[in-house]
């Protein structure tokens, strides 16, 4: 028989089974994460203007540059391409406020890539989520511009009709007890932004008993005078980090990742659920009482209103908790391998976040908790081995 005109002999590749693959590649996973994070970034640019875009650009470009320089210095191409550097830079920018000077994201991204990633052996080997490592380093190094000390009590967010194009520095202080919410707020002609206290900082002051009570009412004056309306905290029209405030955008991004299968739903659910539980149960100091504590704040009930539930709700939507749950804690390399290990991991993060926020002194409690739990990942993995079929697992 003559040879076939269709197939050349020996043209087929011989390789070990399997011969078809699931289609998920590391690069595709990172692109999906970057897409999810950019949903949140777009929200941040809308709420905080062009300044936010500048922070994001500086952070991403620095991360790419640092990755390239590290690869050059070692004389080999960047493993896995620049997708990981882009994602790390973007996540770092999301945790920073838009008012920050340009050198803060620059230093942060460089630290993330060089120390957080390259020093630990690069992609697949790092212990701490690199973006968060960079974030806490700049938190310590640039303490003055990032801490909300008494000299810098309130942060800006763009006002109505000034979204995207407005400037954050033209801010007007708002009095929260007369603030009708972002949509109905009136600001001056020359002002672009509204300035108000950071909700997570107010929650910490409240837990420390530094917010005075009013005729035995404690929660109601706090929610009225120190916090913006709840719908603003859900949409993201409150001050904070570029990506921290937009709870809705974060949830959309997280649902997208869960739908793609690149984030296990157990992780954010466990983290938010334990954070809610911790906020509901852990005691807060009663103002002007000489160190007395009020347990189970969730059951607080003043004038027939369930103000305790509102208190728990503000805990969930303020600070970095939502961003941490959906985008930062789920980094594959710095989380346990198995789903149930991730539940333990995330539950500890959630509880620790609220604990640090109520009783700790560190800013960005959520990021510190994630970094602390990252160190326990090998231990969790060791304790979460699957039993092998046909062998009875050892009794613990």
């Amino acid at each position: 028989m003559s040879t076939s005109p269709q197939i050349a002999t020996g043209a087929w590749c011989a390789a070990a089974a399997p011969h078809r693959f699931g289609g998920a590649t590391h690069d595709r996973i990172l692109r999906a994460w970057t897409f999810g994070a950019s949903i949140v970034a777009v929200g941040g640019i809308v709420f905080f203007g062009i300044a936010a875009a500048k922070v994001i650009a500086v952070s991403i470009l620095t991360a790419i540059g640092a990755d390239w320089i590290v690869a050059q210095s070692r004389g080999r191409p960047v493993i896995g391409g620049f997708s990981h550097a882009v994602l790390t830079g973007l996540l770092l920018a999301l945790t920073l406020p838009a008012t920050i000077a340009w050198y803060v994201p620059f230093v942060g991204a460089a630290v993330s890539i060089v120390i957080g990633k390259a020093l630990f052996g690069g992609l697949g080997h790092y212990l701490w989520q690199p973006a968060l490592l960079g974030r806490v380093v700049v938190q310590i190094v640039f303490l003055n511009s990032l801490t909300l000390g008494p000299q810098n009590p309130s942060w800006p967010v763009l006002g109505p009709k000034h979204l995207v194009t407005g400037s954050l520095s033209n801010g007007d202080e708002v009095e929260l007890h007369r603030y009708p919410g972002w949509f109905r707020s009136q600001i001056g002609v020359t002002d672009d932004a509204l300035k108000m206290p950071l909700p997570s900082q107010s929650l910490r002051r409240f837990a420390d008993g530094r917010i005075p009570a009013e005729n035995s009412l404690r929660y109601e004056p706090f929610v009225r005078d120190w916090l913006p309306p709840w719908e603003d905290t859900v949409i993201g029209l409150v001050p904070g980090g570029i990506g921290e405030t937009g709870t809705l955008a974060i949830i959309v991004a997280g649902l997208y990742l869960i739908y793609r299968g690149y984030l296990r739903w157990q992780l954010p659910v466990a983290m938010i659920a334990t954070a809610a539980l911790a906020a509901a149960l852990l005691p807060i100091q009663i103002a002007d009482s000489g160190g007395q504590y009020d347990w189970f704040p969730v059951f607080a009930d003043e004038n027939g209103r369930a103000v305790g539930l509102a208190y728990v709700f503000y805990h969930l939507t303020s600070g970095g908790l939502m961003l941490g749950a959906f985008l930062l804690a789920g980094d594959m390399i710095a989380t346990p391998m198995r789903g149930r290990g991730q539940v333990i991991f995330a539950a500890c993060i959630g509880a620790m976040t609220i604990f640090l926020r109520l009783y700790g002194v560190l800013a960005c409690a959520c990021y510190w908790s994630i970094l602390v739990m990252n160190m326990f990942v090998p231990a969790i993995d060791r304790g979460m081995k699957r039993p092998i079929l046909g062998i009875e697992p050892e009794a613990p």
Partner: protein
Amino acid sequence: MSVLEDLLGPRRGFDGGLFLPDFKAVTSRRPIETMPATSPLRVPLTARGDLATHIEVRRGDEVRRGTTLASRAAAEAVAVHAPTSGRIVDIDRAWTAAGGFVDCAVLEPDGRNEAAARRTSWSSESLLQHLADHGVVSPSPTCPGHVLLQSIGASGASDLIINAMETEPYLASDLRTLVEQPGRLIDMTCELADALGAHRVIFALPHRHQRVVRRIRAEAYGRLIDVVTLSERYPQCHPIMLAKSLLDREVPPGGTVLDVGAAVLPLAFIRAGADAWFDDRPVTHAVVTVSGDAVARPGVYRVPIGTTVRSLAEYVGVAEGAQKAVSGGPLTGIALHRDDTVVTAVTTAILFFQTDRVESPVPCVRCGWCVEDCPVGVDPAELFQLEAQQSFEVRHRLGLSACIDCGLCSHVCPAALPLSAAIWRCRSLVGDSPEAS
């Protein structure tokens, strides 16, 4: 659909596994088509290199369909018969995917396809003898049919499982057989159960194909056969997973289902056995799924044994530039590197693909998918690292020998690491070491 399957599907199952996209839409709807023998066939004269046979034909002999080409010379061997009528032009060597080079008879078909004279009366030989003389072999485990039945009888297994699961993508030959001849399958199952003295007979079917399940239930009505449906989570088709799902018995690492008193027979063996036992028809054709994204006319074909993959590719129309040909399923099959590989009685599928994998491996990204999806609970990521460092300890031996080579870990790995190949390599390493006793 996998979420719905999990919620509404049957409860039986195993930990791990994965619902794979099945790519069976075309192949499972076309009836089984017999491929005519036109080009010369290179019929292997033994099922396996070590099974001795007497070659009964010489160069220049005229044979008819069913003429014995080789008869049994060893107790474990099976006879080989001519798939069509024609002339033997040569005795040569042919390459088979599973067994390498074996002796073959080159048969030039004359196009008339005349059958040899059939025996008219039943002889008094036993079922096992009958299967061996008619060349019946089992594709998984790959061994002669009568040897498989003998080992089941010797092990005293009391539960007989008929494996019609076929959960690998693309494969549809079992499903087509179920659609086209359900009655014969049930009849042959009863014959085999009688011969083996099985206490319990379970016919495992995919839950998703409800029409097939109803048809089989109707055929099995009144017989002592449990028709059980299972979800199509891969690798449910593996005998060890069937024993776990159906009988809740866990096979110890490195063992087979016979160790836990269960016997699993593949459906292709039942079909070939039915042809031999009821119709006195020797095995001359293999029912082969020919599919893959490079095939113009995918389907299930009854292919004459000895057909080369090259002529099969011409018959079904394989696109130019196909980069991969696989004998068997896409997750467990053997990649073919020669186009003169011949179809044998144990071939179940020939798949042609346009592309091969292009991604290069990156370091493990610790996604944990291989750990969660592994059906037997080993940790492929850890074993891969140990293989790279060559640092095995005895405690890893159980995990290594428990692996059933399903290929899921490599299939899901986003870092494109060759996990299953690495486990296979370390198993051969550790299995030979003195600690392994």
